[in-house]
């Protein structure tokens, strides 16, 4: 057992963990952040995507102790002061989700993409989501959601 010190959704956490525990299991288990989902066993589906120091990471394939001293953002930490993040807003507005199981991972991947490339082309959006699988929507509305979020964020920034 070791102790992990990290920042999760803006709050410092200090939690005892076994060294073999995966980040996703720490989030879903002891930290009770169940918005991060597990949809596969092989790092393919992306439902578990979170941000680690702003980089999108599949939390099923990172050990929790690798997050020592780092800042983790999960879907629960995206809204600020009770207001949804523009990407969350856009997914609702564009019907970018159906069952919602892949959605947290999609939103985190999209948020990471937009933080680095505020005006992505369609091809760049598709490329940015290549690590995330959705079975319901057919992706069209997800791509539209990201495009809409980019426009909203550009407007906010202006």
């Amino acid at each position, binding site marked *: 057992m070791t102790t992990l010190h990290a920042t999760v959704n803006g709050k410092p956490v200090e939690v005892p963990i076994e060294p073999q525990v995966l980040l996703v299991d720490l989030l*879903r288990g002891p930290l009770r*952040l*169940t*918005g*991060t*989902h*597990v*949809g*596969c*066993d*092989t790092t*393919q*589906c992306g*439902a578990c995507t979170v941000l680690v120091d702003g980089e999108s990471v599949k939390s099923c394939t990172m050990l929790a102790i690798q997050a020592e001293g780092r800042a983790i953002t*999960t*879907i*629960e930490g*995206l*809204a600020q002061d009770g207001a*949804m993040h523009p990407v*969350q807003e856009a*997914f*609702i*507005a564009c*019907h970018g*989700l*159906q*069952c*919602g*199981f*892949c*959605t*947290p991972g999609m*939103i985190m991947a999209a948020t990471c993409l937009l933080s680095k490339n505020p005006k992505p082309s369609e091809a760049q*959006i*598709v*490329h940015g*989501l*290549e690590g*995330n*699988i*959705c*079975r*319901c*929507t*057919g*992706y*069209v*509305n*997800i*791509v539209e959601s990201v495009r809409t979020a980019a426009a909203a964020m550009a407007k906010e920034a202006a």
Partner: protein
Amino acid sequence: MSSVLEASRFGSGKTVRRIEDPALVAGKGQFTDDLNRPDQTHLVFLRSPYAHARIVSVDASAALAMPGVLAVYSGADLVQAGVKPIAAPIPFPRPDGKPAATELRHGLAPEVARYVGEAVAAVVAETLEQARAAVDAVMIDYEDLGSVIDPVRAIAPGAPVICPAAPDNIAAQMRHGDAAAADAAFARAAHTVALDIVNQRLAPSPMEPRVALMEVNAEGRLIVQISNQMPTAVRDTLAACVPGPSQENIRVLVGDVGGGFGMKGGPHPEDIVLAHAALSLKRPVKWCAQRIEEFLSAAAGRDQVTHCQMALDADGKVLALRVKTLANVGAYGTMAGVLIPLLVGPWVTTSIYDIPTIDLHLSAVLCNTAPTGAYRGAGRPEAIYIVERLMDAAAREMKLDPAELRRRNMIRPEQMPYTNPMAQVYDTGQFEKMLDQGLALADWNGFDARRAETEKKGLLRGRGIATFLEWTGGGALQESVTVDIKPDGFIDLICATQGMGQGIATSYAQLAVDTFGVPIERIRVLLGDTDRANGFGSAGSRSLFTAGAAVKIASDKTIEHAKGLAAEALEAPAADIEYVAGRFSVAGTDLGIGLFELAGKQAGAHIAVSGDSTAAAPSWPNACHVCEVEIDPGTGGVEIVAYASVNDIGRVVSPTIVRGQIEGGAVQGIGQALCENVVYDPETGQLLTASFMDYAMPRADVFKGFKTVFDTSVPCLTNALGAKGVGELGTIGATPAVVNAVVDALAHAGLGRDAERVQMPLTGERVWRALKGEFAGPVFG
């Protein structure tokens, strides 16, 4: 804005934000694996590494001695404890006239494992890690019985026998139609075409794997939390299989469901084991399937091989269809797995065409693979794919425009109601109108110019069409909904149908807004609780036109009932009571009382009224889908460059949701056409596609976008809403539209009729080989 106008913005037909979404985008959904109980234990399955093997011995002693292990179960243990297998009352005969033959599915295989991945033992431990470690220590000796995973080989003499009552491995067989009439039609036909068709096995793959958490509560009831489309079926099956609790002593609760697609329609054998463990150990027991378990043991879709023929007269009028199909239903025939190829598909085999004669010869074959079940479309995609491929083949044979050949055969509006050769009655359908709109939307006549542009890039271009209908309703057309007005300002709708991502709660809420005239935030939709409501569940694109109709009927009844209560409260004649937007008033006065205030004055402080709806018949949505593809001859890679569809879906309650259903469904159909394929090793029966690394799901780059049009001018005549089910329409149309486009491109590239020999999935390799003249052999060898 008045409250009436405000509310009307959210009624049926309006584009609204889904009521499901705020929680889901915030990570606050309540999926079953998000639930945890104090004192919870974890169950892990041991699965057969053999495709067909006798279980000689099970030694659990080492596993039982490991830390945290609470129990180890074998199949024999379950039988000894009185746990029963799942009944399979399959209503079809075998070729010898005897009843359908299959071994029954036990929670854990007691004597013989019949496919790779069948659960043979289970370990329950304090933690998941302990259970996983201990399951590796369960020692099982097997005697390999030899396996067969291909239905053509399974029915050949000498194949391993999977069920002794079916020595030919045929679980059941049906012939439909008139073979002699078909022979005569083929004899006098001016043109005949024949095709070999493979509808390959698919993995439904909702992103949320199967998951359940079961426990016995303080009153001794079994509480089942599960991700499922059919809560009542789960309850009833568990009551039938697990000794102890009656139906009334089982409560099934369903929270958010991360996709179902038919696969989560009712219990799987694993759920029986979980119930038994929870009852035996008196501790909460959780099982969450890993993705590999979904590939190994969740119900699979499709898996049919077909030889089919079409006979036409000199004018292109179809005289007869012949279809011979072997459906691999897996190692156990399930009700859905056998019904789908033997009856549901045949219901739509002649589709929207006025085809007088059919001769269908359909066999459900046992093979050493996971059993099949419902998967989005369930029989209709396979049948429509057959007839739409034949239509294109016939058009090519006759050198006719494929749209024109279809037009010549379409059932005309004046023929409605129309009875097809399977005795199915279509209430409505203006198929030629959909065709004309679809051709216009796709700019059908401008194709040659687009092909020329594509060819300048050194690529091939093809165009495919599918005009079709489908049967909806799941064979269960009755639903009951309770409206419960609460004094705290909410209207609860209590329904037995189930949300699984399709957004059905939003659609129901919109229908309730129509009647009550209150903001949509005042409506709460309560699903997934067998203590509150029971029924067939959500499958077969049935929910809106059955339970949605019941929402409307129950809401109208509630207003009528509450008018009487308001009359009492206001001491006025009932005939003078008016209801507008949440308020009853006495006509011509300023006397009135709010709906919710009125509820608070009643005994029990609420007003609850139930309403039933029974649709008189299935609905028959139909559509014209047109697809264009570009193919790189250097790689065989197929890109969908245009996709247009016009869909006759009757009344639309939630336009956004309907569009999402059709387009999302179409991408699943595209998945079958281009990439998805469950593959077993033919010699060993090992599953070769057991992860998303090997099973190719459509990704965000699958294509550019849709042009989707609804035609709502032809309401369904057999349900109270006029709606037609839309959950599966896109999936059914997309597969033939895409494949027809690829075949068109290959035929135009010089392959001619040979192009029709390609089989799904049309991967780059297969298309590239086809361009070199390399094809798989005939399906029946």
